[in-house]
């Protein structure tokens, strides 16, 4: 559909407004510049690291000791890789069964009404910032783990649980899409052959949605590998090669975060952060490419024609149903063929039981969400009053508030949007409406996709190295917002594209038909109709920028008495404040962190309501 409309729209007219085209093209190229900056930052840092001569590439990639400080520093990345793997595999082990079961329930068994209730749970879960998960893991799950399984204060297990909750929404929503895309006729064919709904779901629907589910799992894996804050807060900072979830581990991301927050002497240990960043980048990039490949395969099958695929699946369905049925002989013994055999009764019971099991999968997510919210309300609500909202974050907990912090966050998201919104919308308009279909367009799209998959802590490295150091913006709002703008850019482009593509092709045709240039058609007929969609996407990007911690970990301040007054000022931000207070040795600061989380969640909730409001209003007013 995307290619169709753009293609149709392209009729080789010479653009009249070269300046507009130039500006829009530049916006579209920003993703290339951003990607180049990422690669430059990581590559040059990695080169500086190896220049120290403490480790060569082979030692770095094969070594099993990660001791960045000390007399004989050793930079073998395997302990970090094993930490990352432990958390990623552990969280997938929880979230794959839960997520696929939930998607199956939503797609095949849930009534439309319960779907309307259940789907938002997944969305709410995905909207919780990772620093909030980190708080929950460190101060609620970890103590529980210490009591029950004898875990350390910092342990992989609590990180695994919250990361599982973070990637669950990815698995549910993408698997759900894949399951719902399974053609109705092959499902009906399976039922027609006598399969129970459960047999149909597991033997026909799941196999045909397989590649979509694989893509979902791979994307979740990339997210789990790139997750920083929850892992840094809960899993600790000791790089050790083991797979015991009760002990402390350090992930690739957590090491980079440690470089950002800890006392690490200058030299190889700090530059190692860039080499670790490069490793992380390559890892997530590879997983992402595999995920895109899996999605392609799914689309590829579709193109072959539903009919061929359906017949194939029906054959498979028959084979599997034959497999579970008892022998022909016993079937024939049945006196009355219309009475259910014992085996049939077994199958029905199995179906009932299985449906119950998978419908409960979503309640696990719901329970997690409720416990999280309840804990935060319990510890945080009492602390919220006018003084808390206006005072500065004092070192004395009884006086502390988040006044300048709220202002810092508001400044930050406003500036971020000032940079990201024009660039993102411009890029989307260029790519969907004006760009010639071809290699360049494909390249730009691919770059954007890849940019969207870069772990957020890597943007932090770029922000520090490029904006703060190279451009000399320092530890300022400008650095922070440019960094965040880079991160939300792909999100704005994607949502804007969706909004543009939702405007019927006939609008463009009509405008062109009466002699408008392409730009005029876009400017006066497509864009105005796409505004609600764009606004919704923009607001969701604001929400994302508001909750992100890792990219600004290097540049945000921890204390200031006043709100910033200009773009070159240092700034406080809500998620950073939560991070700082959660890790404070004094417990009264943990309550302050909970109160700050409540404020952050309220702001996110408001943003989401605005987005829903705009979407609903636009939908009800739409005349097409």
């Amino acid at each position: 559909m995307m290619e169709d409309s753009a293609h149709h729209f392209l009729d080789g007219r010479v653009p009249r407004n070269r300046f507009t085209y130039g500006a829009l093209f530049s916006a579209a190229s920003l993703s290339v510049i951003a990607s180049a900056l990422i690669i430059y930052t990581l590559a040059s840092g990695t080169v500086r690291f190896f220049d120290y001569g403490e480790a060569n590439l082979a030692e770095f990639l094969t070594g099993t000791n990660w001791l960045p400080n000390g007399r004989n520093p050793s930079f073998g990345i395997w302990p970090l890789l094993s930490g990352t793997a432990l958390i990623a595999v552990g969280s997938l082990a929880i979230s794959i069964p839960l997520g696929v079961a939930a998607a199956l329930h939503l797609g095949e068994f849930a009534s439309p009404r319960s779907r309307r209730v259940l789907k938002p749970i997944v969305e709410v879960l995905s909207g919780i910032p990772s620093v909030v998960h980190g708080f929950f893991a460190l101060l609620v799950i970890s103590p529980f783990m210490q009591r029950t399984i004898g875990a350390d204060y910092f342990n992989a297990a609590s990180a695994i649980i919250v990361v599982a909750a973070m990637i669950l929404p990815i698995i549910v929503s993408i698997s759900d899409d894949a399951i719902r895309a399974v053609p109705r006729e092959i499902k009906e064919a399976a039922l027609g052959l006598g399969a129970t709904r459960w047999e149909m779901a597991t033997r026909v629907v799941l196999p045909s949605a397989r590649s979509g589910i694989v893509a979902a799992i791979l994307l979740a894996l990339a997210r789990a590998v790139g997750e920083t804050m929850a892992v840094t807060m809960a899993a600790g900072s000791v790089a050790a090669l083991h797979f015991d979830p009760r002990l402390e581990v350090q992930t690739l991301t957590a090491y980079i975060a440690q470089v950002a927050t800890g006392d690490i002497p200058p030299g190889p240990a700090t530059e190692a952060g860039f080499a670790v960043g490069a490793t992380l980048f390559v890892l997530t990039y590879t997983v992402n490419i595999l995920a895109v490949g899996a999605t392609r395969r799914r689309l590829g099958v579709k193109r072959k024609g539903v009919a061929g695929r359906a017949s194939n699946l029906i054959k498979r369905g028959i084979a599997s149903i034959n497999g579970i049925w008892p022998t022909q002989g016993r079937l024939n013994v049945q006196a009355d063929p219309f009475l259910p055999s014992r085996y049939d009764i077994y199958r029905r019971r199995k179906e009932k039981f299985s449906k119950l099991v998978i419908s409960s999968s979503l309640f696990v997510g719901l329970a997690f969400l409720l416990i999280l919210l309840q804990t935060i309300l319990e510890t945080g609500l009492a602390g919220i009053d006018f003084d808390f909202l206006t005072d500065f974050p004092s070192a004395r907990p009884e006086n502390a508030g988040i006044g300048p912090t709220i202002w810092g966050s508001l400044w930050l998201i406003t500036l971020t949007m000032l940079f990201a919104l024009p660039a993102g919308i411009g890029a989307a308009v260029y790519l969907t409406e004006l760009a010639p279909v071809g290699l360049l367009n494909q390249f730009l799209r691919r770059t954007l996709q890849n940019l969207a998959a870069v772990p957020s802590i890597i943007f932090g490295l770029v922000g520090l190295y490029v904006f703060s150091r190279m451009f000399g913006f320092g530890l300022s709002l400008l650095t922070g917002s440019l960094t965040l703008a880079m991160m939300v850019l792909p999100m704005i482009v994607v949502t804007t594209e969706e909004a543009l593509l939702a405007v019927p092709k006939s609008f463009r045709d009509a405008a062109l038909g009466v002699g408008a240039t392409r730009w005029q058609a876009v400017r006066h007929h497509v864009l105005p109709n796409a505004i609600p969609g764009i606004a919704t996407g923009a607001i969701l990007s604001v929400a994302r920028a508001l909750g992100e911690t890792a990219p600004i970990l290097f540049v945000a301040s921890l204390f200031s008495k006043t709100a910033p007054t200009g773009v070159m000022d240092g700034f406080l931000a809500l998620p950073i404040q939560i991070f700082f207070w959660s890790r404070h040795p004094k417990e009264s600061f943990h309550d302050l962190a909970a109160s700050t989380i409540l404020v952050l969640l309220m702001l996110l909730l408001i943003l989401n309501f605005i987005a829903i409001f705009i979407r609903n209003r636009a939908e009800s007013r739409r005349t097409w």
Partner: protein
Amino acid sequence: MKNALLTKMMIALLLSTSLVGCTGGDEKESLIQTGSSTVLPLAVAWAEDYDGADVSVSGGGSSHGLNALLNGEADLGDASRLMKGKDYSKVGCDETGVSSDGTATEECMGVMPTKWVVAFDVLAVITHPSNDFATSLTYDQLYSIFTDDDPADYWDEVPGLENAPHEKIDIYAPDEASGTFDYFFEEIIEDWGDDTQVAGTRMEAGDGVYHPSADDNVIMTAIQANEFAIGFLGFAYVRENVDKINTVAIDHGNGAVEPSLETVADYPMARPLHIYTDANADNSEAVNGYLAFALSDEGQDVCDEVGYVRIDLVDANLLSLQRMALA
């Protein structure tokens, strides 16, 4: 039409934000302070109490603080260690421009770093409250417990502790990312951090005796639970829990000294905490105003509050010298 309005609004917004950045005049000076996480609680408290400027404070480590100062990103760089030639060479300056006492002898990228001692951090070696055989330890004994150079596995193997029980030693102490870790080993291992360093830490021995943790609570709890455990922590933290564990008196050749605020002048494991500033900065006046506050009696009281030690308890001369330099 709507769109034109939107565009105009956007331009207006952009302009207004860029203009806001240029205001000032009668406003307070904004200072940026960053660096050591050890200095951080002090810096936050000072920034809070000082009214002469708006100081925003962040962490990131001593190296980060010095780096930010040299790069002109920060007005004040916090460091729990001395500046080294490495800090200069890292930004492309000549590493001979820093002398061994952490002061700069030449400019680096137009920045002339000036060193200030703002407080003392005291380190405490701690044991289980029932421990009566290791109430005082020498540097040599610490060396045999905490390094990988022929380390003692049992308490009675520690030289001079032959009457101690034949029980396994367990160490609970900060991990290598912490400034406390670095400082402790700098004290007991000769040439720590140089190529000529004489031994490694017990962690490097790989015998599982050293249990590192980034969290002070964990270390404290572990030592309370293990009769034969030993460890070390910042005195700031130990002082608040002094009834729950034993502090070990340390002997560095001049008799054993218990860690306490009263004895700190003689206690060997006390290190200065620094702030580095740029003598060439345009806003030196504001920076010095802030420093003068940190070194005033009111500012030094903050040290007690966050668990460090006032300068004059260790070296009264140093405090008055620095105050004079700022006056």
